[in-house]
Structures are given as C-alpha cells and as structure tokens.
C-alpha cells in the first residue's frame, strides 16, 4: 500500500498513429518496469491484448514505479483505452478512474478529430492535462504550430507542453517528471468503507472473470466478500493484484490504487463497467454517480448462409455474449433469410468485430443485413415502442410520430476537401453547428441522424477526402422527423430483409438507387424480374432485370463430361450462397451492397 501522495493515475489520449503505444513503451522501459531483454514493441497494444482476451478491449493498464529527481519513488498507473466511439461510455468511466491525461499530438500532423473527442472526455473528467508533442525527430515536426493549434482548437494551455520523440526516447524523462509534478495525486480515505469502480472485465480460461478496479475509498484484501452494487451479487475475492504489465499478486489495494481482482465469477455479464464494488458487510452507502448500463445503438440481422448452421450460430453467439455484456441478441425469423438473430451493438466497429469473430473463429458464413438504429415509435395510444428492425414497423394508422437518434459529429479536414465534406453531411440530412479553421484545416461539427452514419458514411468520407479527414461522434438524443418504411419488392414480392427506414424527402432517391443497385446485384434469371421500391403500397421506383438470354456450353464431348459436371456443381454451390426469394435467387452480398450509396 502506497500513500496517496506517491500515486499518480493517468491516461494517454491521442489520435490513431500519433504514438500512444510507442510512448507507453518508452515509459515502461524508462521506469525499468520491464527488463530490456523482455521488452517488446507495443506492450500495451490493443490488438494483441484483444487477441489474448478475446474481446474488444476497453481498458488496459500498467503500474510503473518511478524514482523521481526529488529522490522519492512514485507509483504511476497508466490506464489505456482504445478510445473508439463505440465504447465512449466505457472510455468515459476509465477517464473517471484517473486524475490526469497526457495529450499526445503528432507534431508533424497536428490535432485530429479523435484527439478532440478524447480530450473532451478528459476535460469532462476534470483531468489535469499535459500536452506531449511527439515525433520531434522527424524533419516535418513543427512544435510551435501544434502548440498554437492546441490552444486555439482545444483551448488548453500549451505552455507546459513537452516535446518528445517516443522513438528515440528524447524528452521521456521530462514526461515522467511532469506526471509527478503536474498531475494531481488521487484523493481517498483509507478508513472509509470500500468504494471501488469497476473499470473493465474480461474472461480468462484459468482465473474466470478478471475485474479491473480503481479503489476510491477503503481497502480491498484477498479473502474478503464483496458486493456489486448494481445487482447486489456477492462474491468471494480469491486473488488481487496489479499489472506490471503481467499480473502480479499484492496483499491489498488501497485508495488511489488501480489493480485487479478475481472472485470465481463465471460470466462477464455479471460485471458491469461503471458499477461500484464495496464490501458485503459495512459497505458504502451510495454508489459512484454516473453508472449507465450500456445499450446497443445499432442492430442488424445475422443469418447463417447455410441454414443448417443455425444451431452453430446460436452456440457462437451465446459464447461471445458470455464475454461481452454490451452485445444483445434475440432470435429472428425472416421470410427471405430463414432463421437467424437480431443483434444489438454499441456501434459499427463493435458489430464488425463480433461478426468477424463468428466467421473466423466459429467458421460460419454469415449474411449480415443492413444495420439499423433504434427508432422510437410513438403510438396514437400514447405508448412508445423501440423499433430495432424496420420489418417490424407497426401499422401506420396507429403511429403518431417517429423519433430517431442523432449524433454530434466532429470532422477535421484539409481545406481543399471541405466542400465535399459539407455536401456529404448535407446529403445525409446534417445540420451544421460549427465551422472553424485551424491553419489550413477546417473543423466542422454537424448534427446528423445516426441512421445516415451507421451505414457507409465513414467509407464515403474517406473516399471524398482521399483519407485525409478524421471523424468522431457522440450520441446526443432523439428527434422527431418524417420517417417512413421503404419496402423492396423483387418479382412483386416484398423482401423483408431489404426494408429500411428513410426520410420521406429522400425516399425516391434512395429507392431509385437501391433498385438500380439490385438490378446489378441479382443475376439474370430465365424470366424478367421487376424490382420495385415502395412506401406503404405505393411504388416510388422501378427497374426491370431482363431475362437471361444466353448461357449454354458450346462444346461438350466425352472428355468434357467430368469437367462440366464439376463446373455445374460449383455453380450449384454458388447458388446455395444465394437466398431463394419466391422464384428469385438473391446473392447474399446484395443485402448489404444494395444499401450502399454512391454519393
């Protein structure tokens, strides 16, 4: 146990590739936490750890011991977060577990959207912030320009900024000294009842669920009985320790300290990020403020390509859900796609991670339907329903109005692409809130419907700005708009998996784009196929896929029998990858591709 005055807890906020992982490596090395011979690059790399833990990581920590110039030894706890928007809530909790941040900015690049989004989280958590301008070993480095930007755009004092090269190690000592002298020590009372924040948790095959905690007040010891304040569950602590960065047992964790506990917990679901942990007896009265259960914001259907794999899919989803409390699922039946699951995610990245893991680790080919946000459907009878799937849209005669989730999107973009970015946001029903310049870069803030962003907004943004824009967002709330359900009819039959919610004013355009896309995606059949978009029975766009006219092998003699049989067997297998809808075979990729917009 260390006295509070000798503890510093901090995080590092940075845009991707600005050098967060490299800086963490240098700090680990400089403090001798890891012997030089055991040092590998990117000790705290999220991807590696994700692979180990088998989940999308939200927080990750290391405890450093640093002998400062004043002759005292300090415990420095670094909590690292991948900082992706999908986990904004988890990141905000991690931020509450520390008192300060290093704001890393690549001095050859300057401030980016992710820098902003993350630094605002730090400001919200009342952090003391030390700007660190990295990569000064590079010729393009321009520390004074970046300092100006930090002051102008973020509005924090950059006079105490430290110029470093995480690559060469230059300036690292100053960073450590600054952590000790500029970041505040944690507060807390040793004699008070135990109050600890659950920062993250993950499953380990040997130890069960590992819980990362920050002790606010009191002392946690091995063998004690603890209580999760959200659900009142009681657990017996069988191990406590710290990360250096590998696990190391300790006797106790006192106020201000960050470490882990295990308590034979079987499911990650039983440990909610942001929860307060206390003792079973003589526990604290009130939990830490600000707990929010994580709620999925993006939903999509996951169906096995091969319908016989439904049970395998169920098994995979259940296993993944054990280790990821923020992911929800329920069975779904689609006329087009058969049996599958409607799954909820914290965001698109989360969706992709889960989907990829099902495909890769469980070897199940999936059809993913278009992601949808959660609409609030206000009924005439005064009740409100959450709509997770456009196919479930209630009869309009009972609907009073519909609200959709909105976001605040921050985009930083070089001047020359600003026009394209504004057009993109405008096309996606955005409302401009802010437009400011920082040197040759513009910062635009837009209020956008989440619905317009979940799908291919980021891809489009990357393509119109040739990859030079950075983007981040946060959810803001719900707002009413004129939303309608658009159905797609293929060969006069509605295909439920292609139904979408769209804004009335944009329905024609989207409908036309979708039927044109589908015309290219669906192979020709032996008959002609009308493809229509309709709103409440009224057709708003129509294309006709003409009939197949020629598909026959010109030559087929004795020697070709085997070859042709194999070829047709292959085509037949290809056909299995399609879904039969009425009399029409629709390829699986159509369910996603049809919704991509080219503008």
């Amino acid at each position: 146990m260390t006295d509070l005055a000798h503890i510093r807890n901090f995080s590092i906020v940075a845009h991707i590739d600005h050098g967060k992982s490299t800086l963490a490596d240098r700090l680990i090395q400089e403090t001798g936490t890891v012997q030089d011979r055991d040092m590998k690059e990117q000790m705290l790399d999220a991807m590696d750890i994700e692979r180990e833990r088998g989940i999308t990581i939200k927080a990750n920590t290391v405890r450093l011991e640093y002998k400062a110039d004043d002759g005292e030894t300090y415990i420095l706890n670094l909590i690292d977060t991948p900082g992706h928007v999908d986990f904004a809530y988890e990141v905000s909790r991690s931020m509450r577990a520390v008192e300060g941040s290093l704001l890393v900015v690549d001095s050859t690049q300057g401030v980016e959207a992710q820098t902003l989004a993350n630094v605002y989280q730090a400001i919200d958590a009342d952090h003391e912030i030390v700007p660190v301008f990295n990569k000064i070993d590079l010729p393009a480095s321009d520390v004074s320009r970046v300092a100006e930007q930090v002051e102008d755009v973020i509005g924090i004092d950059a006079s105490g900024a430290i110029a470093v090269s995480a690559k060469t190690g230059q300036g690292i000592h100053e960073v450590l000294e600054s952590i000790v002298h500029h970041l505040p020590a944690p507060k807390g009372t040793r004699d008070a009842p135990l109050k600890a924040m659950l920062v993250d948790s993950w499953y380990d095959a040997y130890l069960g669920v590992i819980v990362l905690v920050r002790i606010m007040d009191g002392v946690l010891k091995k063998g004690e009985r603890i209580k999760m304040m959200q659900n009142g569950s009681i657990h017996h602590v069988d191990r406590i320790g710290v990360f250096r960065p590998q696990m190391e047992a300790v006797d106790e964790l006192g106020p201000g300290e960050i470490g882990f506990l295990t308590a034979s917990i079987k499911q990650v679901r039983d440990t909610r990020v942001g929860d307060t942990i206390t003792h079973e007896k003589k526990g604290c009265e009130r939990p830490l403020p600000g707990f929010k259960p994580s709620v999925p914001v993006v939903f999509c259907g996951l169906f096995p390509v091969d319908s016989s794999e439904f049970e395998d899919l169920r098994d995979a989803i259940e296993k993944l859900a054990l280790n990821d409390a923020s992911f929800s699922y329920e069975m779904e039946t689609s006329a087009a796609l058969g049996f599958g699951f409607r799954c909820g995610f914290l965001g698109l990245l989360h969706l992709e991670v889960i989907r990829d893991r099902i495909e890769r680790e469980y070897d199940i080919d999936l059809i993913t339907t278009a992601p949808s946000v959660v609409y609030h459907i206000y009924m005439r009878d005064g009740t409100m329903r959450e709509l997770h799937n456009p196919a479930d849209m209630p009869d309009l005669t009972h609907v009073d109005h519909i609200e959709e989730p909105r976001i605040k999107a921050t985009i930083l973009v070089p001047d020359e692409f600003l026009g394209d970015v504004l057009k993109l946001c405008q096309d996606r029903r955005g409302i401009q809130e802010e437009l400011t310049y920082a040197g040759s870069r513009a910062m635009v803030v837009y209020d956008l419907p989440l619905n317009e962003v979940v799908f291919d907004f980021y891809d489009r943004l990357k393509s119109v700005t040739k990859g030079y824009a950075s983007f981040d967002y946060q959810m803001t709330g719900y707002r009413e708009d004129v939303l309608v359900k658009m159905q797609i009819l293929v060969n006069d039959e509605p295909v439920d998996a292609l139904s979408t919610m769209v804004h009335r004013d944009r329905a024609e355009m989207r409908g036309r784009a979708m039927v044109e896309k589908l015309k290219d995606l669906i192979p020709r059949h032996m008959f002609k196929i009308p493809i229509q978009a309709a709103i409440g029975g009224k057709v708003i766009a129509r294309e006709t896929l003409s009939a197949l006219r020629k598909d026959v092998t010109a030559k087929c003699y004795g020697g070709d029998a085997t070859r042709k049989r194999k070829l047709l067997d292959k085509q037949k297998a290809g056909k299995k990858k399609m879904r039969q809808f009425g009399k029409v075979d629709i390829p699986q990729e159509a369910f996603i591709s049809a919704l991509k917009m080219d503008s």
Partner: protein
Amino acid sequence: MPAVLDEDWRNGGFGLYVHWPFCQAKCPYCDFNSHVSREIDQSAWVRAYLSEIARVAEETPGRVLTSIFFGGGTPSLMAPETVAAVIDAARAHWPFSNDIEITLEANPGSVEVGRFAGYRDAGVNRVSMGIQALNDADLRRLGRIHTVAEARAALDVARSCFDRVSFDLIYARQDQTMDAWRTELTEALEMALDHLSLYQLTIEQGTAFGDRYNAGRLRGLPDDDLSADMYLVTQELCAKYGLPAYEVSNHAAPGAESRHNLIYWRYGDYAGIGPGAHGRITQGAVRYATESIRAPAAWLQAVSRGTGECVRMPLSPQDQGSEYLMMGMRLREGLDIERYAHLSGWPLPQPRIDRLLELGMIRISDRRVMATDAGRPVLNAILRDLLVD
C-alpha cells in the same frame, strides 16, 4: 429400357475414342490437349495405341463396337498406316457393327489432304474438318494456318474420298456482325453435305485468348444479346437448309448425325485411349470415369510400362444421373425420364420441372423431357435447376 443397371450403357452404345495430341501450330482459343512437336515417332505411337486397345478390350469383352473416333489435336497428321493399324487392332478385339462409323478430325491444310485416300483405305468412313471461318482475315485472327481457298479445296477432296463429311465453324467471333455471320453461314450451308458443327467462340482459361481476355485486351466480342441473336439466326438458317440442330451446336440432315458423339450425349460407354483421353466404362454394376495421362511423352512411357490410365473413378448414382442429364439435355430428343430416375436413384425434381414447363423452357413428350427452342440457349440455367442439390 434394360431392367438392370449394369446394362444402362446399352442405351447409348459403345465406341472407341483415340486421341492424337499433335498439331502443326497451337490455335490461341484452343484448350484441347494439343502440342506442337517437331519429331513424332509414329511406330512408337502405333505400339502404344495397340497396347492400350488390348488393355481396354479385356475390360469390355464381347461388346460390339459401333464407332471409332480419331480426335485431337490434329489426327490428320497421323500416318495412314498408323490409323490403319489402330482400326485393325480394334477389329481384332471387338466385333464391329455392320454400320460402324469411323471418323477422323482433319485440318484443311494441303499436307493433310494428300493422306485422305490413305485414311479411306484404312477404313475411315467419315471426316470432320476444322474450317472455322470462311474469310481469311478472321482465319488469321483465329490463328489458323490455312486459307479459305485451301479449306474449299480440302473439302472437295474429302467429298471425293468419303461419303460422310462434316465441317466445323466458330462464330460469335471478335467484331463479327450479324449480317456477316448470316452471309458466312449461308455460304457454309451451300458447301455443306449433311452435317455441320457450329460453335460459338468460347474463351477458355489457360489459352492465349483467355490471357488476353483477362487482361482486358480481347475486344469486339459480342455481348449476350448479340450472341443470343446469332444463335437464333443459326438455328433458323440451318433448319431452312435441311440441317436442323440435333444438339446445341450440331446440325444434320435426319439420319446423318454423328453416331460417335451421340454415344456421349446418350450416355453410352466409350473407351478413351491416347494422352488425356477420357472414358466411361461399365463393369458389373459400376460405371467408371477413366482418364489417361495428358503429357504425350509421359503417356507413351506409362503405356510401355503397362497402362496410360491415371484415373479410374467409380461414379455414384447421383454423378451418373447428373452426367446423363447434362449430356442428354443437349440433344433435341432430350432424355428418358425413367432412365434418369433409374440411374440416379431419384426422380427429376417435380416442382422445378413444373416451373420450367410453366416458363416454357422445357417440354415433356413421350416420357422424355427436352429443352424447348427457348430453353436451349439457356441450358446451363435449366441444368442448375434440375441437378440434384
């Protein structure tokens, strides 16, 4: 229809295919097992063929041979003595049917023409000539080394030597217009005797055309609509000239069909010898697919050690059903519904049959199912529907 499965092949008959793997030059569209070789020791090839005939004859004792087909490559590069030795050996091992058809594929170059009489004396009674196009510019684009004049002359010699002469054309070529094809086909029909093979140009992977196509450098190929129209016009014109299609790409006056190829399409048995040759041989209740080593030198060597065969795979009932379906549906006469069920162990899927009937893609008559004129150009789509999942 025979009641026992092991006699199924009798529905199609029994033939012998002999593959000759050499050509004077390799055509850029061709994916046949053909090689250009300066020196060919014909006597070594005779020995090898005879040894293979003896081997396969042992597996098919007592069968009556209804056809022999010399295919290639360019079999008209074989010495007439080589052809004679093969035919004699076949006769020594199998009884010949009275009307046995003995076909040889010939290229219309002047060298080959000199050997036609020799082939006739060896026993060949039908030739199939690869004329391919009736204008010199297109022949050059197809990489052919003969001219139209040579082709016409060769055809004349062939007609003087053989009662039965057919020739091949390739259409839907680069930059070919509908009008040009109509004119060319009319000319061909004027020249034709009683049989014509008319193939739409197929771009095969692994050929020079295939590589050019993949690189986006094979331009002027007709789109689906034009090739569909060309196919329709071909059917019409040929029928008008008394040579209706009896198979997807083959046209004949009634009775003049290639008996050998009918064995394939009616799913009979055939022994295949020579490099890369395929066969279908029924023994007891099992039908085998056989294949021979493809590379000529390796094949020769393998034969000298005992056998040129490298694959002998028993075909499951489902495979046999699929093959019969794929082959049989190419014919105007279609396939025998009960024979299919008997072979594959499963009837044709009724709901799909009903749907295809409704679409007018197939017809059923006299317990046979066949593609209609509308269905034949999209036969692969019909087959994908009908093949067992």
